[in-house]
C-alpha cells in the first residue's frame, strides 16, 4: 500500500529555520500524529534546529519525547490528580490550572516538579481565573514555577487578551517573567515583546511551524486497480449502482489513513453552507466528494472508503490513471496517517 507524504526536505527545513530564526524563544508543539510527520521525526528536527524545549499534548506522549529529544518536554494538558500515566522527570514541565491540583501535585509524588501556571483565557478550556493566582502561588509549596502560560483562541485578534494577561502576570504574585503564548501572529508577537520588555515571551507553535509551507509537502496515493463500469452496475461492499458510465478506481488510502474522517468544519458560515448545497450533483444522489484529485478535479467516492483503500468513481469523459500511477490527495495533516513519510 502506498499512501505517502512526500516532503521536499530542503524547502521544508528552510521554512522551519526561517520561522525559528524569526521567532525567538519558540517552543515547537509536537503532539497527536505529529502533524502527519510523526512525533519522533519532529523531535529529531527540533534537536537539529537547536531548540531547548518541546511541547507535547499529553502524558502518553512524554516517554517517547524524552527518548527522542534531549531537552525539556512540557505537557500542554494540565495535570490532574487522576491521571495514571504522569511522567515525573526533571526534564518534564507540567501544566497546572486549578488551585486544588497545584496543592495535590505539590503534596504528592510530584513535589519539587517544574510547572507552568496556566491562565484561563476566552478559550474557556483550562486555567486559573486571574483572581485565583494568589491562592495558586500559596499552594505551590516545593513546585518550581518555570513560567506562565496562556492558550488563546484563533478567531480575531488576540493581542489585546495576550497583553491583558501579560499585565495581570506582572501585577500578580506569580514569580516568573517567562510567558508562554500560543496563536499570536508574528506581528502580534513583536508588539507584545516590545510592550512587555520585562517578560520573556515564548511562543508555542505547532501548525504554522510544521505545516507552514504546504508547498513543500504533497500527499500521493497509488492507484491499485481500475475497472470500467456501466451505468447501473453494482459495485463494492454495498453494491451500489453506478450513476453513469465511467471508471472505478481503487486507490490506496482509507479510514486507517484518516481518509473521510470528518471533524466539524472550521468554516460554517452561511456562504460555506450555501456552497456545499449548490454543489448538488452526486452529493444529492448520496455520493460524497473524496479528497482525491484526478485529472484536475476532486472526484466522488463510489462508496464509503474502506479501511485501507477507497473506491472512486470517475466519469467516462475523464482521463483515467493507470495502475501504479500516483494521484494527489488533500488531507487534514492532523488526522492523516501515512504509510511512509519520504523526505527527498
Amino acid at each position, binding site marked *: 500500500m502506498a499512501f505517502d507524504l512526500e516532503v521536499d526536505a530542503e524547502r521544508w527545513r528552510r521554512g522551519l529555520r526561517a520561522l525559528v530564526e524569526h521567532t525567538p524563544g519558540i517552543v515547537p508543539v509536537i503532539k497527536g500524529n505529529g502533524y502527519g510527520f510523526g512525533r519522533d521525526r519532529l523531535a529529531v528536527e527540533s534537536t537539529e534546529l537547536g531548540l531547548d524545549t518541546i511541547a507535547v499534548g499529553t502524558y502518553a506522549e512524554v516517554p517517547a519525547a524524552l527518548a527522542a529529544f534531549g531537552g525539556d518536554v512540557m505537557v500542554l494538558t494540565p495535570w490532574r490528580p487522576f491521571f495514571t500515566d504522569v511522567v515525573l522527570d526533571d526534564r518534564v514541565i507540567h501544566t497546572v490550572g486549578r488551585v486544588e491540583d497545584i496543592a495535590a501535585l505539590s503534596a504528592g509524588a510530584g513535589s519539587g516538579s517544574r510547572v507552568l501556571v496556566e491562565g484561563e483565557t476566552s478559550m474557556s478550556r483550562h486555567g486559573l481565573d486571574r*483572581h485565583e493566582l494568589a*491562592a495558586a502561588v500559596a499552594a505551590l509549596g516545593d513546585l518550581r514555577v518555570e513560567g506562565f502560560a496562556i492558550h488563546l483562541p484563533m478567531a480575531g485578534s488576540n493581542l489585546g487578551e495576550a497583553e491583558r494577561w501579560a*499585565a*495581570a502576570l*506582572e*501585577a500578580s*504574585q506569580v514569580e516568573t517573567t517567562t510567558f508562554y503564548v500560543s496563536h499570536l501572529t508574528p506581528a502580534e508577537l513583536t508588539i507584545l515583546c516590545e510592550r512587555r520588555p520585562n517578560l520573556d515571551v515564548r511562543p508555542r507553535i505547532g501548525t504554522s511551524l510544521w505545516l507552514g509551507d504546504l508547498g513543500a509537502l504533497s500527499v500521493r496515493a497509488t492507484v491499485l486497480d481500475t475497472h470500467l463500469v456501466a451505468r447501473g452496475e453494482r459495485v463494492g461492499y454495498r453494491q451500489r449502482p453506478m450513476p453513469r458510465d465511467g471508471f472505478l478506481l481503487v486507490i490506496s488510502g482509507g479510514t486507517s489513513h484518516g481518509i473521510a474522517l470528518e471533524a466539524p468544519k472550521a468554516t460554517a458560515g452561511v456562504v460555506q453552507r450555501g456552497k456545499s448545497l449548490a454543489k448538488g450533483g452526486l452529493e444529492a444522489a448520496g455520493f460524497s466528494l473524496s479528497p482525491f484529485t484526478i485529472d484536475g478535479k476532486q472526484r466522488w467516492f463510489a462508496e464509503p472508503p474502506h479501511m485501507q483503500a477507497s473506491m472512486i468513481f470517475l466519469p467516462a469523459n475523464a482521463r483515467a490513471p493507470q495502475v501504479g500511477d500516483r494521484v494527489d490527495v488533500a488531507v487534514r495533516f492532523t488526522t492523516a496517517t501515512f504509510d511512509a513519510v519520504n523526505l527527498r
Partner: protein
Amino acid sequence: MSALVVRPISTPEHLAFVRSRPSVSFLQTPAWATVKNEWRGESIGWFDGVTLVGAALVLYRQLPRLKRYLAYLPEGPDIDWTDGDLARWLTPLAAHLKSQGAFGIRMGPPVVTRRWHAATIKQAIADPVLTTLSAVPADESDSEALEVAAALGRLGWKEIGTEGGFSAGQPKFNFQIPLSGRDEQDLLAGMNQQWRRNIKKAAKAGVEVTRGSRADLADFHRVYSETAERDHFTPRPLPYFERMWDALTAEEPDRLLLYLARHDGDLVAATTMVRVGSHAWYSYGASTTEKRDVRGSNAIQWQMIRDAREAGASAYDMRGITETLDPDDPHVGLIQFKVGTGGEAVEYLGEWDLPLNRALYLGFTTYLKRR
C-alpha cells in the same frame, strides 16, 4: 439545622448584640436609625430557639403616596454568612419585611470577596493595560465569599449594577489599612514617601491635632462647607452632624470622634472618625483651601490612624474608592491618595435586591434610574 425566626428586637437588645460581636458596620448600629431620621428604623434579630444569633438595622423608605416601603439594610445584615444554608437566614427575613409592608429588600452583605495590596495597585496604575481593579489579580480571594454571591443568585437576589464601583448606595470597593499586630514604625514604613514626608512636614510646621467636642462641630462644619464648595458636592447641614454626634456618642462615648488640625490657631483640617468594635472608619473630612502646604490633612489622618490602633482597632477604613485605575480618570487621584497609606483595596459583595412585589419594585428601580 433548626429553623430561624426573625422578629423585632429592642434597641438595648440590639446594642448588646453589637457589643458582643468583633465588629459590625456603623450603619448597622441602632444609633444609625436616629441619624437617618427620614427613614423609619427597626432593629430585628434572628433567633435560634431563644438565642439571638444575628441582627440587623432595617431602614424603611416609603414610596410616595403609598404605604409600601423599600427595606434597606446598609452594610448588613450581621448574620453568619459562612453558613452553607443562607435560605434559613434570608427566607424568614423576607417574610418579616414583607409583613411590614416592604415591596423589596436591599442589603449589602458585609462580606469581603477580594483584597489588593497597595504595591499591586500601584503597579497596576502604572500599567496602561490595567484600567480597573477587577482586571488586576487580587492578592487574596475568598472562595467562600464568592460562593455567597452564587447562593444569593439562586435565592432570587440580584446584584445592583454599579458604575465604576459607585452605586446609589454603599461603595463596593473600599480602602483599608490593616492595623493588627503593627506598631507606628511599621505603619509609617508601609506608607509611601510622600505620605511620610507630608506627615513630617506638618509636624515641623507645628500643626496641632486635637479632639473636638460637640461645640466644635460648628467649626468643623465651616471648613466642611468650604470643602464642599471647592469640590462641588452638596454639604449636609450642621444639624445632621449634631444629630449624628448625639446619637452615636450616646451609644458609646467614643463611637464618633471629631478631630481638628490647627496651624497657628487657624483650623486647616477637620475630620470625623467612627469606631465599632475592632473597626474604625474615617467618615467625613474637610480642609481649608488656605495653608494647604502645612499638610493638615496628612497630620489629621495620621492621628486618627494612631488613635484607631491604640483603641484596639484591627482596621482603619478609609471607605469608598472607585474601581478605576485609569490614570486619565479624575477618580484615580482618590485611590492614589489612599494607596499612599500602604493599605489595601477591599471588594465587598456589593448591594443586592430581592423584589417582594414585582410591579412596585420595577417602578421603584425605574424611578431610581431616571433620577
